């Protein structure tokens, strides 16, 4: 029944494509109102949300063979943001994963009409991204490089060429543009209806005017859905509720935090031009003017992302469908000015309507997908940052793969719901943050940008102390971390001015911090690291850790082991250091943003054993990293204990007293390859220990340092960081960490089979370090991450991180090298020989720089002896 009705809706719409069909859609559903359809008692999957996300997930799940699916929509299908969407499909995204999703969507929508017989209004118009400034052009060139290597055609064009592509454009203030010829426009509502129709043909049952009240959960597992029309038992629930995903997530007994928030979004519709615009007219994105412009029924459709967005529905005001919210012309004025500057001839064009359609935004401008860390079987796909149409197809596919196979075919950590915790779920935080995120859509995205809103949420007890000493802060997972310390006599540029793709203004500051780490001693507050303790009454802790981690953890008490928490395919779910505190307790240090993910993984895989205790002790310890050759002297003076390598070997952990404070966990590692110690200090002692360290350290030239110095130190030594360089599709063998895997430790561990096989077959990608050769630090564009790597002129992979090495006086990039077959493009085994016998180039915004590839770090960086002759007076200066 549902399917027939759906087709009738679609059928009627077909007669009048585009906007006019709203009224017909409305009338057809009101006719259906009288009908009451009984919901099924149970299903395998219940999807909530009949927009493009929900229908895409249903479509892909049903294609992959899952048939027992129910899709519920509280109003009518495709009636939310999907209906009001501007209908622009654009593949020019900043993240590769987003580019891939958009590319897939493009291909999917292209053939959808053929597949379903439903008109989607798909027109390949191409799009043109304008640059008013050189910086914008650099940004576009970076995207252009990335698009090309994944096979999306695009090119950088001159203003003159822009004028040829669109005759209404004023191009006098442009420095260039990027043309993406295969981008398209499409009616998103019709796409959603087509997807729904196809899914319905594959057996998906669709019910509209049915609201999900809450999801029923038992023992951390989805058991069913409570709707206003009754209950449905199910194993999987997919929250595709768009703007209402947040509220729906909170409605559970065990709330699922889905941090997103809506902002009003405006676009303008006009009557047709005197000579109507052709339907193939390309879409224009003028990010510097904050607007987009597409042709629409011979006229134009133009909206944008203003500087001063209007957040909406903060208090969760619920509306079944987005009714036409107020048109706010005064608010639209800057965008209108911008439009008329770009297309002066439009002055005389008649206005049809100003549409106000709220869009959802997330705290980091990336969409949200994946499984809830708290509730198994609860999946989410929402928070599209106004790119729902572009991502819809691809995101739906990845989520379907995730549900069916347990993981998607691409690494989606950047989009994973588990990158957030409950700490991002405050309404106030979201409201403030999205007001920053929405303008950021069209702001220049420069390296090392930090959000300004929603800050100072989690801080170390030393925050004020460090701030007073000139600390500049960045935020990770809500935690404030020092980037570097501005000396009292130095002024840095204002925030806006410091945006650059070139050498940043903190270069000298970080240099002196790095130098101090190498020659004296620095202290870095690294309290943000995620810290877990696992203890048991018997051997359970060891047993479970041996099963979850690839390295051998059955080491003597006091030893620290670097190890990975791998998945079935041998990829890193987490990369951590584990100290054995006693026979039965372990202290686990993971990256900051692992707090939710790692916890969920451990909880999922640990046996339910009351004798096994897992505790998140992140908040209990302040972590100070003492880096440098004099760290030994500082610590031994403070503890009256010998700290030399004979007494305190590397990768060793001991509880000792520092100053007056007892019970400080001192570990001989620094996460940088430099000598030194990590101090894990119970927070009440933090200030004392810090003060003691600083006062004793004075004579050894101690100073504060920040994460930028740390990054430079670790990257020049080829240290990979999880989340940045390695992810759940990277195995230890691919990044030269065979030594951290003990395949023969006497018991099985997750991922062992995959690694054994890989060891036999060889790896298909290899983590490699590149040292840029002909790169001028002062004058050339700096590498960031995501730059394409070319071997003998062939694309082989992308960089994952980069930093300037003050010791090598060169830029160092880390990245993966693949071996694509020249004939088929298939991946082949990468050998050391393959790496070594290649000429490499790194593509930074279209400029290629020669690079030397290395599989092992530069040895000279690990020798710290300075010769007597090299000493100079400045060595006596306090740092």
């Amino acid at each position, binding site marked *: 029944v549902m399917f027939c009705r759906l087709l009738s809706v679609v059928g009627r719409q077909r007669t009048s494509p585009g906007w006019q069909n709203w009224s017909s859609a409305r009338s057809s559903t009101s006719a259906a109102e009288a009908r009451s359809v009984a919901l099924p008692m149970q299903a395998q999957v219940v999807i909530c949300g009949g927009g493009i996300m929900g229908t895409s997930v249903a479509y892909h799940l049903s294609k992959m063979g899952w048939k027992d699916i129910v899709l519920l929509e509280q109003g009518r299908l495709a009636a939310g943001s999907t209906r009001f969407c501007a209908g622009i499909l654009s593949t020019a995204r900043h993240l590769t994963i987003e580019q891939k999703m958009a590319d897939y969507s493009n291909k999917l929508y292209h053939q959808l009409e053929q597949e379903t017989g439903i008109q989607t209004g798909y027109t390949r118009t191409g799009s043109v991204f304008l640059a008013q400034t050189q910086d914008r052009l650099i940004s576009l060139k970076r995207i252009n490089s990335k698009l090309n290597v994944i096979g999306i055609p695009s090119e950088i064009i001159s203003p003159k060429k822009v004028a040829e592509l669109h005759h209404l454009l004023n191009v006098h203030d442009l420095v260039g543009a990027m043309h993406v010829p295969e981008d398209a426009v499409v009616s998103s509502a019709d796409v959603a209806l087509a997807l729904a129709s196809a899914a319905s043909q594959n057996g998906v049952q669709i019910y509209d005017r049915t609201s999900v009240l809450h999801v029923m959960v038992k023992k951390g597992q989805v058991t069913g859905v409570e709707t206003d029309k009754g209950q449905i038992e199910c194993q999987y629930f997919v929250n595709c509720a768009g703007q209402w995903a947040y509220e729906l997530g909170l409605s559970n007994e065990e709330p699922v935090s889905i941090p997103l928030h809506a902002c009003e979004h405006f676009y*303008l519709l*006009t009557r047709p031009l005197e000579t109507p615009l052709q339907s193939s007219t390309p879409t224009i994105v003028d990010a510097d003017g904050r607007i987009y412009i597409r042709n629409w029924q011979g006229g134009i459709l133009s909206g944008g992302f203003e500087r001063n967005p209007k957040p909406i529905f903060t208090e969760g005001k619920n509306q079944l469908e987005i009714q036409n919210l*107020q*048109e*706010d*012309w*005064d608010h*639209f*004025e800057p965008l*209108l*000015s911008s*439009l*008329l500057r770009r297309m002066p001839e*439009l*002055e*005389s*064009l*008649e*206005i*049809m*309507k*100003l549409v106000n359609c709220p869009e959802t935004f997330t705290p980091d401008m990336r969409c949200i997908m994946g499984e809830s860390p708290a509730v198994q079987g609860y999946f989410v796909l929402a928070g599209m940052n106004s790119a729902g149409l572009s991502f819809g197809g691809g995101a739906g596919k990845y989520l379907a793969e995730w549900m069916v196979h347990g993981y998607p075919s691409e690494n989606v950590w950047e989009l994973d719901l588990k990158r957030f915790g409950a700490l991002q779920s405050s309404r106030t935080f979201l409201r403030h943050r999205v007001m920053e995120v929405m303008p950021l859509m069209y702001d220049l995205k420069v390296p090392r940008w930090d959000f300004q809103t929603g800050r100072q949420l989690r801080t170390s007890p030393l925050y004020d102390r460090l701030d007073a000493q000139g600390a500049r802060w960045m935020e990770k997972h809500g935690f404030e971390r020092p980037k570097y310390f501005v000396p009292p006599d130095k002024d840095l540029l204002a925030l806006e001015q410091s945006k650059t793709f070139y050498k940043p203004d903190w270069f000298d500051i970080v240099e002196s911090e790095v130098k101090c780490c190498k020659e004296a001693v620095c202290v870095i507050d690294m309290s943000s690291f995620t810290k877990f303790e696992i203890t048991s009454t018997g051997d359970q802790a060891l047993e479970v850790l041996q099963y979850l981690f690839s390295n051998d953890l059955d080491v003597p008490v006091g030893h620290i082991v670097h190890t990975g928490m791998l998945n079935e395919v041998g990829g890193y779910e987490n990369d951590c250091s584990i100290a054995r505190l006693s026979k039965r307790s372990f202290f686990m240090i993971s990256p900051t943003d692992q707090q939710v993910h790692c916890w969920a993984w451990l909880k999922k895989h640990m046996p339910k054993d009351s004798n096994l205790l897992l505790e998140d002790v992140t908040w209990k310890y302040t972590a100070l990293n003492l880096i440098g050759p004099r760290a030994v002297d500082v610590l031994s003076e403070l503890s009256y204990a010998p700290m030399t390598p004979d007494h305190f070997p590397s990768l060793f952990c001991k509880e000792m007293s520092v100053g007056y404070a007892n019970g400080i966990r001192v570990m001989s590692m620094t996460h940088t390859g430099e000598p030194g110690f990590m101090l894990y200090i119970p927070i009440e002692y933090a200030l004392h220990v810090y003060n003691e360290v600083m006062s004793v350290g004075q004579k050894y030239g101690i100073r504060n340092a920040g994460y930028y110095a740390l990054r430079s130190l670790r990257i020049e030594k080829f240290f990979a960081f999880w989340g940045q360089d390695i992810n759940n599709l990277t195995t230890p063998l691919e990044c030269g960490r065979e030594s951290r895997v003990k395949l023969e430790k006497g018991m099985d561990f997750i991922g062992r089979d995959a690694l054994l096989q890989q060891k036999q077959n060889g790896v298909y990608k290899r983590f490699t370090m590149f040292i840029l050769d002909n790169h001028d630090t002062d004058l050339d564009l700096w590498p960031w991450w995501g730059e394409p790597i070319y071997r003998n002129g062939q694309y082989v992979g992308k960089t994952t991180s980069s930093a300037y090495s003050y010791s090598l006086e060169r830029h160092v990039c880390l990245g993966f090298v693949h071996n694509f077959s020249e004939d088929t493009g298939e991946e082949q085994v990468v050998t050391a020989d393959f790496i070594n016998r290649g000429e490499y180039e790194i593509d930074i915004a279209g400029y290629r720089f020669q690079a030397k590839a290395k599989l092992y770090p530069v040895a000279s960086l690990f020798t710290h002896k300075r010769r007597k002759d090299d000493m100079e007076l400045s060595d006596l200066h306090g740092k």
Partner: protein
Amino acid sequence: MCVCPGPRRIGIPVRSSSLPLFSDAMPAPTQLFFPLIRNCELSRIYGTACYCHHKHLCCSSPYVTQSRLRYTPHPAYATFCRPKENWWQYTQGRRYASTPQKFYLTPPQVNSILKANEYSFKVPEFDGKNVSSILGFDSNQLPANAPIEDRRSAATCLQTRGMLLGVFDGHAGCACSQAVSERLFYYIAVSLLPHETLLEIENAVESGRALLPILQWHKHPNDYFSKEASKLYFNSLRTYWQELIDLNTGESTDIDVKEALINAFKRLDNDISLEAQVGDPNSFLNYLVLRVAFSGATACVAHVDGVDLHVANTGDSRAMLGVQEEDGSWSAVTLSNDHNAQNERELERLKLEHPKSEAKSVVKQDRLLGLLMPFRAFGDVKFKWSIDLQKRVIESGPDQLNDNEYTKFIPPNYHTPPYLTAEPEVTYHRLRPQDKFLVLATDGLWETMHRQDVVRIVGEYLTGMHHQQPIAVGGYKVTLGQMHGLLTERRTKMSSVFEDQNAATHLIRHAVGNNEFGTVDHERLSKMLSLPEELARMYRDDITIIVVQFNSHVVGAYQNQE
């Protein structure tokens, strides 16, 4: 509205020959002397001058310049005429120079002047909930006198509930308004304290223990307290609470806020008077208490406790409630009566308090004894003490006082003192959810702006809404170009709203800069603010404003409790 600030608060006809005495000895009274000369005439002149200039600041009519020039030979105008040359150049420049802009302040300069004294206080929230009926307040003041004679105070009562806010308009110097701004709230707070608390405080003083704090002040850094007099003031206050303790009959009764306010006002004025009569061995303090007593100040104080709003007013400052009607529009509810010649009841009161024979002289030319504009005030012992007492105090007082013509001068027809009282008129209002804010301001504001405009401007500012109706295209044929023109015009109107983070600043911007269309005219604003010190007072009075914002949720909750 085109009212000029016009005449001074006090005008005393002094023989012009006695004028050149002033200035060096007493800083404050310099301000006094210009208008002392021939009050009525001058005010007329000022009036006309201001009238002309008010509307057309830029193109001064020759008449005005002439009318000024007519008086230049007069010795009394020595100071007054100094600015004349500037003024002349100024108008000339405006007329003939091709680049008149060079006389304008830039918008940032204007802002820095307007914002110099702004202060905002937000009632802290606990657990995301503000349980106070007050959200916070914005205050600001713009001097016309140098130094400014207005004062403001705001404080939270710590031993009782409620918040006190007040504006004080000084005349004949700032000594009295300063003293009242420091002291009055303590008198009020003490009057409100229950017997046990008073005892506890007194015992603590007696045994040298730490005292309970009574007030939490919310002050702008420029709002200073006099360190020197602090001990003296404390002793007077202590005497007051000691008397309160003694008076207590033991049966605890609910303290009536209205009564407390009246008592506090009267008591403080009494103490000011007494301190001046008794004098102080310290010559600085002695001079200070005399200056306080011989100058004057009006006071308008609000006490907000939950939904109970009391306004105690003495003089011609005003408290205005901003009420939002159901349709979103704003209306003004006056919560105080001006005590001046425009108030029939005050005229009546004065006539009743004095013999029939004085009926004609007690108020002359709309002034008390032909001199004082407000009919109630703190200080001003010249209108309170007997002639004997005045003479005795002045003679025994310091030389500076003795040399001062103003203090020595006895008002005409001075037969049955006191003519002046500090007793406030107290109004009570029970807050309703539609009562969104309260504006307390000195007459400097009210004489330039109508109360309805004041409330509308603040209301629109606080709600972020502009009275401009949102535009809807709905069916009309509008082109993008037309719409763009319309929007640009509307934005320029709006821009002044966004410049201010403080409602009081926003109000001052309008008060000083409004043109005949009721919108802020930057050119005008810039001119008004760049007037030389000596001229400023002729075009405007000191303006002091406190805007208290109420928490409708809390107020509504109170209502629902019943």
